[in-house]
């Protein structure tokens, strides 16, 4: 049974209002997944506007385009948006869309809980953005949070953050966080209980393994953040003293709680990207992923070790040297399984018959950019080096390479790869290639010089800088990368809209891939599969296409 490709305009038999209504009340994981990704990409553009304003302000020294307070709101909202309203929803959205299809199930374990999670995320985001016009900030000029995305104490105490900006930060993220937790519960239940017959854990697609690991991390880390935020609310509204130094509370305690959440959080942001790459690179190298069991072991190791590295965000805070050393050691340790994954991806491509579709180009770009970001991360794990460069632009360069060059490039790769499945239409490859190069040039121009200005001493979160410090050239180059990224985003959006209208029809399996989502039509019917499939190996579709040479012979 096939279904026609999605067309946004032609279905005149059903009114626009009732089509919107069917999406709003939907509990279908496919629609919810697409709404997660769509809303996440809209927040991506809002976060991009905030970044653009910052780069315009920093283009030249002693610029006065933004006030200091305005700039503080920009970097806080940019970071908060990108982590909580772009990264998590887009990645969880891909998980939502793909997990049931990849394991041969008809939907998630708890479809209504799924919808609840989506709307919590959307309304949490709207609550956070309402802060721009609601409440009254410190100077009554708009009350968006201005305390940095990690909201350190004692800046966030009632004494130093007088208006409601911090409260918007707390509540917006708390609401969104509940949405993430319900989604994680759904992922765990679905993956544990609804795999199709024959699909053992070691026959699951690696993307599913990685989302399973992400589910565990979300359930572990987000409640700690919620607890810390509740403690902050108690401090701000009930006069509690969790982070109040005047009553022997500890401001460092906030940092410990936040980063105990925060470090697993960044692994939550990268592991799904790893999962996407694990699916895409083999297909476009025409080779099985190198070392599947070791990839699973590496994933679980990364998740486990990530619970024990959080102090590396606090090296310059004044903790005793023995403590810093332990966490430096664990941070070095986590590089080992990550490196294993890098080598396995390269090993998959090595000797393969590589097809550089746009998706594969983005995936290869991911390998390069994530490698750079990972290397600067290891540099920062060296405590004395970190003492020099903590809170400098070097760190900003590091995490943008891993989060933008890493996670987002993997997301773009995934968009080009799975868009045909979701909509029945292929994205334009020529436009995609332009998009890819715009991003590679833009990301390098913007984020590479940050390592240099960081080493020269430029601190983070400063709304301007003095001339004559050597920062001007690097800041100018960084800002010059922004137009390329804007063009890249516009090309991507245009590509999506044009392809929805009259892109080439994709068919069920345009890439000759091997996992179960390609075994049904594009877009899939609402029940996903006419008949629940059975699974005989990690590549069930390969087994069906090549019955004379199935993978189960090699298990």
């Amino acid at each position, binding site marked *: 049974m096939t279904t026609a490709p999605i067309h946004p305009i032609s279905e005149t038999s059903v009114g626009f209002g009732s089509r919107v209504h069917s999406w709003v009340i939907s509990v279908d994981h496919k629609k919810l997944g697409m709404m997660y990704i769509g809303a996440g990409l809209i927040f991506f553009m809002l976060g991009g506007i905030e970044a653009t304003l910052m780069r315009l302000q920093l283009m030249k020294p002693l610029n006065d385009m933004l006030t200091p307070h305005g700039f503080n709101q920009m970097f806080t909202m940019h970071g908060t948006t990108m982590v909580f309203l772009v990264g998590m929803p887009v990645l969880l959205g891909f998980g939502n869309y793909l997990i049931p299809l990849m394991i041969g199930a008809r939907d998630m374990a708890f479809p209504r809980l799924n919808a609840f999670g989506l709307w919590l995320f959307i309304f949490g985001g709207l609550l956070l953005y309402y802060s721009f016009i609601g409440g009254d900030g410190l100077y009554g000029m708009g009350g968006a949070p201005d305390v940095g995305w990690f909201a350190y104490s004692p800046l966030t105490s009632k004494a130093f953050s007088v208006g409601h900006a911090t409260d918007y930060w707390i509540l917006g993220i708390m609401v969104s966080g509940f949405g993430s937790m319900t989604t994680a519960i759904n992922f765990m239940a679905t993956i544990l209980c609804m795999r199709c017959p024959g699909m053992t854990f070691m026959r699951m697609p690696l993307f599913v393994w990685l989302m399973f690991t992400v589910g565990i991390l979300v359930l572990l880390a987000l409640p700690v953040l919620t607890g810390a935020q509740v*403690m902050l609310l108690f401090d701000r509204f*009930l006069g509690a003293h969790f982070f109040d130094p005047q009553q022997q*509370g500890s401001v460092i305690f906030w940092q410990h709680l936040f980063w105990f959440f925060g470090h697993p959080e960044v692994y939550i942001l990268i592991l799904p990207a790893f999962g996407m790459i694990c699916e895409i690179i083999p297909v476009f190298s025409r080779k099985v992923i190198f070392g599947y069991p070791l990839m699973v072991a590496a994933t679980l190791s990364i998740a486990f070790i990530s619970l024990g590295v959080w102090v590396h965000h606090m090296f310059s805070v004044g903790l005793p040297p023995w403590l810093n050393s332990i966490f430096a050691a664990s941070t070095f340790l986590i590089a080992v399984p990550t490196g294993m994954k890098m080598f396995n991806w390269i090993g998959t491509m090595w000797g393969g018959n590589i097809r550089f579709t746009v998706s594969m180009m983005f995936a290869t770009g991911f390998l390069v950019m994530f490698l750079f970001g990972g290397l600067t991360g290891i540099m920062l794990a060296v405590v004395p080096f970190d003492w020099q460069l903590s809170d400098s632009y070097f760190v900003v360069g590091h995490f943008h390479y891993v989060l933008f060059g890493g996670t987002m490039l993997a997301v773009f790769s995934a968009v080009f790869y799975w868009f045909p499945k979701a909509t029945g239409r292929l994205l334009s490859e020529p436009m995609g290639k332009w998009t890819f190069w715009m991003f590679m040039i833009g990301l390098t121009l913007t984020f590479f010089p940050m390592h240099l200005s960081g080493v020269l001493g430029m601190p983070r979160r400063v709304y301007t800088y003095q001339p004559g410090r050597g920062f001007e050239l690097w800041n100018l180059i960084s800002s010059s990368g922004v137009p390329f990224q804007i063009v890249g985003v516009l090309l991507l959006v245009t590509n999506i809209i044009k392809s929805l209208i009259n892109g080439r029809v994709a068919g069920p399996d345009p890439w000759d891939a091997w996992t179960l989502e390609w075994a049904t039509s594009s877009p899939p019917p609402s029940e996903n599969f006419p008949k629940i499939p059975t699974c005989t190996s990690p590549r069930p579709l390969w087994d069906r296409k090549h019955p004379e040479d199935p993978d189960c012979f090699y298990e």
Partner: protein
Amino acid sequence: MACLIFAECWFFAGFIVAYLFYIGKSSSGPLPREVIDIKPVLVNSAALIASSFTVIAALRGLARSHMGSFRFWMALTIVLGSYFIYGTAMEWRGFIVDHHLTISTNLFGTTYYSLVGFHAFHVIVGLCLLTTILVLSLMGHIHVVRDHLRVELVSWYWHFVDAVWIVVFTTVYIVGMRP
């Protein structure tokens, strides 16, 4: 439910760590050994722990389709849980009225009220769930085959609340009384 319990454990972990970290660090105000009277708390704890056993008995009644037994043990669970809340409220009343200890008094007040308070909140949520089941059962809407697993999952939540209390009790009334 297992995943929810896992997540809730980590939520409580933050408050337990806060309590342990801040033991003995209050610079003024009432101290634990000045205000805590352990005897009513022991009675309270006994009630809550007993309620875990009564909910097990309720489930056994449900499994055997003895709806009368099921309702009786459910009601008893709710009574014991409600007594726990009443006992906590009495303890708090004593702290506030007699010793002027509130969440804003000192670190002991801050960490005590947030930890015990969040636990009590989870007990109240559990009581709402149990009461809903009891009322549905009285209205004839609980069917053994269809609903046994659902009621069992709620009983898991109730056992979790009880287990958290054992940890909270040890933290506040045993470890916290040392300095």
